[in-house]
């Protein structure tokens, strides 16, 4: 299998830079999710890997091969598009076989591959049907199956579940998770949906304004966002931010109306501007406890998992807290909140996280 190396890859459209000088390696035999809001350049980057767009500058390597000028047809990749692509006028089986025909496989091998993916994607019962008869969800499954059955070294997914209905979405996500765990290919998956990214990724490459701002496993990015953007974009709801007017820095010590403790950051304290805390990093209790601040509940909503999401006003600032079912149910107008120092991420005035360099005492 190949890794994919991008060297100073840039793509400019008329007067807009979609991808801005990215140097990055997508590791082989794993799932890398390019995650970011619309217009961040993730799809353009993927299309350049596929050869559907040519970089304005920079080189792209598959393993040791420079593929920058290799046409799509000769890149030996698979790609699943946002719009479910089916080849009309044929059966589902034929659709799965079509890209395999140029591989000159024996009939047995061909059938084996087709049956195998059909099984995983739950397409066995529709193999003989004509593709036009099927709904978008099934069509997209066929598209996924078609690319997987071919066993190219690299498979690209361009927001494959964006355009299909909710039930099929869940189903397809599940089958893809299953597929990805079996596949040995290098997989690149583009999405703007952080839940999808968290579920499917071995590593996430977070993109903003044409650059990759952070790349790591979902767990690491979630727990240690390196920027305010990463904290806000990953997580549902996004990270709570405490703006500088709620943060007092005195010497090496930091205090805030949102918590009672004083945090000693040593020499780094002076660069701290904004604090970040995740919704689940705020502890909430119904009755008054030592070291807690009083908070007013302004809104209460229950999540799909049974936990509650509370909108709280603490020390004049509105924050969101995720709490257990029992606490959420009992919460009245006033609750008591505390934030453990290790749950706080520190950002400088440019929005860059300082946490990696800071040890909380």
């Amino acid at each position, binding site marked *: 299998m190949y890794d994919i190396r991008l060297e100073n890859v840039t793509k400019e459209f008329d007067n807009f830079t979609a991808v801005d000088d990215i140097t990055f390696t997508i590791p082989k035999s794993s799932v890398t999710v390019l995650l970011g809001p619309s217009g961040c350049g993730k799809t353009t980057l993927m299309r350049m890997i*596929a050869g*559907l767009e040519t970089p304005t500058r920079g080189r792209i390597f598959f393993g040791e091969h420079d593929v920058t000028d290799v*046409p*799509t*047809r000769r890149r030996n*990749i*698979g*790609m699943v*598009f*946002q*719009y479910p*692509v089916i*080849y*009309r*006028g*044929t059966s589902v089986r034929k659709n799965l076989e*079509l*890209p395999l025909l*140029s591989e000159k496989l024996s009939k047995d091998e061909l059938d084996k591959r087709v049956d195998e993916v059909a099984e995983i994607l739950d397409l066995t019962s529709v193999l003989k049907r*004509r593709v*036009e*008869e099927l709904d978008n969800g099934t069509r997209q499954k066929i*598209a996924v199956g*078609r*690319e997987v059955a*071919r066993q190219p070294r690299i498979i690209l997914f361009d927001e494959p579940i964006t355009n299909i209905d909710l039930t099929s979405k869940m189903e397809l996500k599940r089958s893809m998770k299953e597929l990805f765990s079996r596949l040995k290919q290098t997989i690149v998956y583009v999405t703007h949906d952080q839940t999808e990214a968290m579920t499917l990724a071995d590593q996430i490459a977070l993109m903003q304004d044409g650059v990759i701002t952070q790349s790591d496993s979902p767990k690491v990015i979630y727990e240690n966002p390196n920027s305010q953007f990463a904290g806000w974009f990953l997580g549902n709801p996004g990270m709570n931010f405490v703006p500088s007017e709620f943060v007092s820095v005195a010497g090496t010590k930091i205090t805030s109306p949102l918590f009672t403790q004083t945090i000693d950051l040593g020499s780094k304290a002076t660069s701290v501007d904004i604090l970040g805390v995740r919704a689940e990093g705020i502890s909430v209790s119904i009755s008054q406890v030592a070291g807690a601040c009083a908070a007013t509940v302004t809104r209460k909503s229950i999540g799909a998992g049974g936990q509650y999401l509370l909108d709280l006003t603490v020390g004049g600032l509105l924050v969101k807290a995720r709490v257990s079912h029992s606490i959420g149910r009992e919460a009245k107008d006033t609750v008591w909140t505390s934030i453990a120092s290790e749950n706080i991420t520190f950002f400088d005035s440019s929005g860059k996280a300082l946490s990696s360099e800071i040890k909380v005492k």
Partner: protein
Amino acid sequence: MAKSVETLEQSIKDVPKAKKLESKKTWLSWGLLAPVLFFFILMSVLPTVWMFGLAFYDYTLTSAQNPRFVGFDNFRDFLANRALAGAVSRTLIFVLSAVILQTILGILIGVLFWKNDKMPGRRLALTLLFTPMVVTPIATSLFWKFILDPTLGVLNFFVSTFGFDRIDTLSSTTLAFPTLVFVDTWMWTPFMTLMTLAALGSVPKAELEAARVDRLPLTRLIRTVIWPHAKFILGLGLLLRIIDAFKTMDLAYVMTGGGPGDRTELIAVSLYRFAFKSFKLGYSSAVSVFLLFVAIALTAIYLYVLNARKKAEE
């Protein structure tokens, strides 16, 4: 319980009211349609009905006689008329050769433009390409007549400059008909190019890209990606062109007047002569009715094929 009965009664009372509103709306839509319908009926439906009626009468404008009912005599005469049978078969050959040529050329040029969507001056080239189609057929016929003129024409200027004998294409028994086909092709190839571009444009971009990724060979690409999307628009263009070519009159009338002899006498030219030279309105109505049925038959065949395909796909 009492209350629900009341509400039920109330809702029953509401029904006619709602209906009244509905009928008002219907009147509004009919009212808005009325002017168009009026002109449509006046200009299109009535004359057609009139024509159907006339086809069964002997009626010549230049004679003093009143229209006389003759039953199917006009049709019988017309079907027995050898010259007209010749004109019909000539028209069929004209339609076939011209439309096939235009379609092939149109598709080739269309594909060329489609493949090169980044070529410089594409827009200008397309605009220029479409001019023949925009010019009035009479004008086109006239200037081709001048180009091909044996003594003054620019074609023969070049022919004689290079030392060849002057040729009089439009008076030549062998060349007149192919020349008409050529001019018609010149005029209508852009239309098929336009249709080809529209048809190719209806193929989703993702499917074309997927075909590149999946390394589909060209024949597969055409069969499973392009054709299923392109066939409707292309087929529609073909149908329009066939019906229109069947009615070709101005071209032949202006350039050759049907000659030499009857070499370029298309059915529409004959029809024009019957109606507006001999003023035999009954007879020419019968011919028109026949032509109308040919056009309807072609459309019906096309729609039938289209529906059969759709059904097969379902």
